[in-house]
C-alpha cells in the first residue's frame, strides 16, 4: 500500500528514537496513573445545581476531621466566593476536597500545590492532597466566572 513511499535512513533512525521515547513516556504516565493512583481530579457523582444549597452534603459546607490528620472539605464555589472561605489544618494533614457549584463554572486552585480542580455545575469534583508544609495558602478561582472573578478567593492556613 505504501510500497513506493521512501523513508530516508536518517529519518528512520530519528523517528525510531522519537517514537520509542514517546512510548516510554506514555508507559510512565500510565504507571503513575494506575500504579501510584496519580489521577487528575474528577468524579462521576452529580448534583443538580438548584439542589446544591438545599441538600446534603453541600447545604452545610464545612471542613470536618474524619481521622488522625485527615479532613474532608465539603465546599461550594459560587459567584464570587467559596463556602467555607477560610480553612485551617495542622501541617501534615490530608484533605479530601469535594466541591460543586450552584451557578456557573468555577475553579479551585491553590498555587504552589497540585490542587487544581474545575468546578462544573451539576457535578461533584473530588481531589485529595496532603499539605506537608505550614503556611498561608491562597485558594483562587481560575476559571472566568463573571464580573467578580478576580475577587473570588479563599484562604487555607496550614499551622
Amino acid at each position, binding site marked *: 500500500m505504501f510500497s513506493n513511499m521512501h523513508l530516508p535512513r536518517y529519518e528512520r533512525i530519528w523517528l525510531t528514537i522519537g517514537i520509542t521515547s514517546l512510548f516510554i513516556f506514555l508507559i510512565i504516565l500510565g504507571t503513575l496513573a494506575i500504579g501510584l493512583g496519580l489521577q487528575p481530579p474528577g468524579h462521576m457523582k452529580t448534583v443538580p445545581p438548584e439542589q446544591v444549597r438545599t441538600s446534603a452534603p453541600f447545604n452545610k459546607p464545612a471542613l470536618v476531621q474524619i481521622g488522625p490528620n485527615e479532613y474532608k472539605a465539603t465546599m461550594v464555589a459560587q459567584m464570587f466566593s467559596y463556602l467555607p472561605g477560610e480553612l485551617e489544618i495542622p501541617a501534615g494533614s490530608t484533605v479530601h476536597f469535594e466541591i460543586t457549584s450552584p451557578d456557573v463554572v468555577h475553579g479551585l486552585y491553590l498555587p504552589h500545590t497540585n490542587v487544581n480542580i474545575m468546578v*462544573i455545575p451539576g457535578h461533584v469534583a473530588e481531589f485529595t492532597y496532603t499539605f506537608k508544609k505550614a503556611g498561608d495558602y491562597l485558594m483562587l478561582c481560575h476559571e472566568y466566572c463573571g464580573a467578580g472573578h478576580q475577587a473570588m478567593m479563599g484562604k487555607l492556613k496550614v499551622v
Partner: protein
Amino acid sequence: MENTLRDRSSDQMSFHVQDRRLILAHLGFAFIAFLIGVVAGLVQALQRTGFITLPSNIGYYQLLTAHGVSLALIFTTFFIIGYLYSGLAKTLGGKLLPSANMVAWIGFYMMVIGTLLGLMMIITNDATVLYTFYAPMQASPIFYIGLALVVVGSWLSGIAIFMNYHHWRKKHPGESSPLFAYMAVATMVLWLICTVGVAIEVLFQLIPWSLGWTDKINVELSRTFFWYFGHPLVYFWLLPAYIYWYVQIPKIIGGKIFSNSLPRLTFILFILYSIPVGFHHQLMEPGVSSFWKFLQVVLTMLVVIPSLMTAFALIATFELAGRSKGAKGLFGWFTKLPWKDVRFVSTFLGMLIFIPAGAGGVVNASFQLDQVVHNTLFITGHFHITIAAAVILTFFAIAYWLVPSLRNRQLTPFANNLGLIQCWIWTIGMLIMSTAMHIVGVLGEPRRTSYTTYNNHPAAEVWEPYRLFTGIGSIILFLSAVLFLINIVYLWFFAPKAESEVDFPIGEVGEEQPKPPAILERWSVWIGITIALVIIAYTIPVIHMAQHAPGSPPIRSW
C-alpha cells in the same frame, strides 16, 4: 489561458480578476480583525498587569472576549481561507472554478455578517463570555447566531475548495494532485470534521437555550462538544503554516521539496490525531472518567510522530538547499539560508519558537503534569508561542508577498526590510511576554483574570515582577503589529506596480521522487478512520453525559 499555468515550476503568477477580488476580500477582512484584536489585546494586557485602569464603561473581560474572538476565531479563519484559495488558483491551473467562486462568496458574506453580529454583542457587553463561551453563562442569542453563521460560512469555503480539487482530479485522471492543493483539502477536511462539534453545541444547545426554547443546558456535554472542536481548531491554524513550510519555503531558499509523499502522510496523521483528543483540555474536571481521559491523552501524544516528521523534513530541506549552494561542513548550510528575505526569516523565527512551544504542549496534555499548569498563565504563554508566534510569524511572511501579488505590486526592498524589523520585534516581544507568562503560570497566576493582588496575599506577591515583563512584552508586540499593518497598507496601495506577472513561490518536487501512493488520495479511507477513532474515543462518555449530567439554567454573571 493555461499556457503559463501548466508550468508548475514557474514562480510567476497572474491572478484572474475574480479570484483577486475574492482573496483580497478575505485578507482585508482578516487584517481589520487583526487590528481590533491587537488593540483589545494591548489594553487588556496593560490592565491585567496593573499598568492602567480601565474607564468604567469598558470591562476587562469584554476586551478579553474581543481579543480572543477577533484574533483566534476571525482573523485566522479569514486569512487561512484566503491563503488556501490563492494556492489553489496557483497550483490547480491558474484560476479558481467560477462555480466554486459563487459558493466562496456566499461563505464569505455569511462569515462577515456573523462576525459583525458577534462583535456588536461584544461591544454592547451582551456577550462577555470569552471566546470559549462556556455555559451556563449565557450571551445574547445574536452572539451565538453570529458564531453559527461564521461556522456555516466556513463550511461553504471548504466546499469551494473541494470543488476546485474535484474538478482538477477529474481532468487529470491517474495523476497525484499538486502538494499545495492536497494539503489545502486536508486542512478543510480537518476543519469540517471538527466544526461539527461546535455546530452541534451552538445550533442544538446554545441557540435554543438562549432563545428560551429550552430552560436548561447540559454543561458538561456542551464543554465536550466545544473541546472536540477546540483542539483541532489549533491544528486548523497550524496546517496552513505547515503548507507554507513544506511547499513554499523550499522554493524561497532555493531548494526542493524533500518528499512528495511524506508531507501528505504527515497531514493525514494530523487529521487522525488532532480530532479525538479534546478531553485533554478537560483533564481537571468531573463528569469524564479517568479511562477516557487517559485514552485521549495517548491519542493526543501520537501527534508527536507527524511533528517529528515535519521537523526532519524541514531541516533536511534547509541542509540540502545549503549544500546545493556549496555549503561545507556539518552546519555550513545554515549560513546559506536567505537571512535577508522576510518571506523566509519571519517563518524561520516562527519555526524556532515552535520547538519550545511543542514541548510545552506535551506538558499541558500530560495526564498528571497538567495539574501544575491548567488554567494558569502557563497555558496562555503556551498558545501565544504557538498561534501567536509560530503561526502568525508564518502568516506575516505569507502576507508580505501575497498582498503585493494580488495587488499586482512589488515587494520592494523597503517593505522587505521593514518586514524584517517587524518580525524580529514581534519575536523579541513574544519571547519577553510568553517567557514571563510561562514562569508566572508555574508560580500560580491564573489566566483570564483581571488585575488583582488577592488582598495582597503573599502567594500573589511573587507574580509582580513577571507582570512587568508581560506588560512590556505586550507593548513591544503591539508596536510590531502596527508596523505590520503599516507595511501591509503600503504594499496594498502604494508599492510600485509589478512589471508583468508577480512572484508566487511554489516549491518543486525533486525529479527522483516517486509518485505518492494512491491510497493517500483516497479521502474516504482517512475520513472513515477519523470517524471511527472519534466514535471509539467519545461515544461512551458522551452517552453517559447525555444521560446523567444535570442541566443548568442560564446565568448572566457579568
